[in-house]
């Protein structure tokens, strides 16, 4: 079922948790709310569920206006960050709970409930654990039971709060793939909260990036990665090197360092150049286009690439720069800790100093 948020806002005491925001979620879509802690993503999720009331605005599920509807009548499934399984009930009783508390009129009979529970447990591949208590399950198993419990009442929308936050990396990856498959199979509309950009990009149809109580960007993962529309989104989506530049003729400069602008007309402006770490090449000598002297402070071969940490030499950056090289590139020109190297970007995103708007994409040949 589609979800339509119209001008939703929320304040706690004097703290503006959510500035007025609107969002449309299509039927069957999987949406990731991505942001750092305190960005309001969990508050937004709880408002959609009805666990928190919005100060203003309207919420619609499909054609149904649910703004003033109590949580228990909204027909949502909610998976909590720490699962919130009922400790004193067996796994089967946990999953059956939503069915057993239905009105006598709607409630399926005992045999039917049992059949549904077994089906749900089989779906999450934990049918053999029906008689166990939550304290006897691993984190990943608890998470899947929580999901089965939330799906038992056939909710219109499924909401997940940091669903994989408390799991180790391997289980997390496995569950992520499994949830994605389940979603494709059943086709429920779902919204999940995460602070892990990889998780958001991998799992969602569209990602909603949030900061400080407002939406920064809503886009499909590929789009979001290719065209981040603000510095915040850029920063949040992963390692990026920032060149804080002044304009000087056709060059972007910062103390000893400079870059020739790729523009045909040679016009430049002051601003910040964001360069992704895999779009940075390292050379033993400066090129005609770039003079960015850096000192190697660490070389970390991580999986398929070699990550080189770099400190500026004769100029300044706020953070250490990183270059991700392929093993082949690295072997062609190996560097060691303490070496001086010259970096040259292959492409970058330029934010002019006076605007908060979208960046301009730059390419060097």
């Amino acid at each position: 079922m589609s979800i339509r948020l119209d001008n939703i806002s929320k304040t706690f005491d004097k703290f503006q948790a959510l500035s007025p925001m609107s969002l449309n979620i299509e039927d069957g879509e999987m949406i990731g709310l991505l942001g750092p802690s305190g960005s309001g993503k969990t508050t937004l999720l709880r408002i959609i569920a009805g666990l928190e009331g919005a100060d203003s605005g309207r919420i619609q599920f499909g054609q149904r206006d649910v703004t003033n509807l109590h949580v228990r009548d909204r027909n949502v499934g909610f998976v909590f960050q720490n699962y919130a399984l009922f400790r004193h009930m067996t796994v089967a009783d946990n999953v059956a709970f939503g069915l057993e508390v239905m009105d006598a009129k709607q409630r399926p009979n005992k045999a039917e409930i049992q059949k549904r529970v077994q089906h749900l447990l089989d779906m999450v591949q934990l049918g053999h654990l029906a008689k166990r208590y939550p304290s006897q399950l691993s984190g990943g198993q608890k998470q899947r039971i929580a999901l089965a419990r939330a799906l038992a009442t056939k909710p219109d929308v499924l909401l997940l709060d940091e669903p994989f936050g408390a799991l180790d990396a391997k289980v997390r990856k496995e569950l992520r793939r499994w949830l994605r498959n389940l979603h494709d199979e059943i086709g429920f509309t779902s919204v999940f909260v995460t602070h892990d950009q990889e998780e958001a990009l991998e799992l969602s149809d569209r990602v909603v990036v949030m900061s400080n109580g407002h939406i920064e960007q809503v886009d499909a993962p590929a789009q979001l990665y290719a065209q981040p529309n603000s510095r915040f989104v850029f920063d949040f989506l992963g390692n990026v090197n920032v060149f804080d530049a002044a304009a000087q003729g056709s060059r972007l400069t910062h103390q000893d360092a400079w870059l020739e602008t790729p523009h045909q007309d040679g016009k430049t402006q002051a601003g910040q150049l964001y360069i992704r770490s895999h779009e940075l090449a390292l050379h033993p000598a400066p090129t005609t286009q770039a003079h960015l002297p850096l000192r190697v402070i660490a070389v970390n071969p991580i999986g398929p690439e070699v990550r080189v940490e770099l400190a500026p030499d004769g100029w300044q950056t706020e953070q250490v720069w990183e270059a991700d090289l392929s093993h082949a590139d690295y072997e062609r020109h190996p560097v060691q800790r303490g070496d001086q190297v010259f970096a040259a970007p292959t492409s970058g995103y330029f934010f002019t100093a006076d605007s908060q708007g979208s960046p301009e994409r730059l390419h060097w040949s």
Partner: protein
Amino acid sequence: MSTSLNATQRKPRHKRVLPGLGLSLGSSLFFISLILLLPMTGLVMQTAQMSWADYWYVITDERVVASYQVTVWAALLASIFNGVFGLLLAWVLVRYEFPGKRLLDALVDLPFALPTAVAGITLATLYAENGWYGSLLAELGIKVAYTPLGIIVAMSFTSIPFVVRTVQPVLEELSPEEEEAGITLGASDWSVFRRIIMPSLWPALVTGVALSFTRSLGEFGAVIFIAGNMPYVSEITSLMIFVRLQEFDFPAASAIASVVLIVSLVLLFAINIWQARYLKRLHGR
């Protein structure tokens, strides 16, 4: 030869991280012996002066048996009342914010702080036919002071903190997520309370009620002033012990006391075992 072999084969001694086990455990055991075990031994010694027949005769005396009935019924009703009212009080103190909350919280301990005799005299005055409560209740035809009802009032007054103070911390630690999970699944407030909150609260509540019950079994000071102490009607067991002491019949007094002691101990042990089993399931084995 064999000793040296033993010495080399002995398991390596692991030094404990937390120091002072010997000293702290030793002094704890010493004080427990001094204030608990020694008097109890005295009780057993006193009783041991009697033959089994005498013992049986003393503890099954008609007036004493009547006092058991009065005491157990009154304690039972008082602790059930406390179970309901104490849970309500703990709920209010944990779940809501209101002016004077701290004061109310402190007042809960008043029955512990107040000398029980003072409580007894106060209650007797309040519930007497010309007292503040008593005069109002008299109009409705209810007599509290100097009746078994008075015993229940006195018992529940002195033992209510047991229920509140055992339930309160457990209630505070309940995770709101479990209740929220219940509500998102469509459960009514009553279902959430009955199916989610109560099962977690149950062990603490039963313990509190049991403590309240055993405390009431032995209550003396608060009760005798309001009970009226009519033989067969409103005499409690601890009064019977007192009466025997007044008659300098120490063995008989000890015999009756031993009955109260045994009942209380059995009850407390039973509750502990039950609670351990219940909690084991809740927190995993």
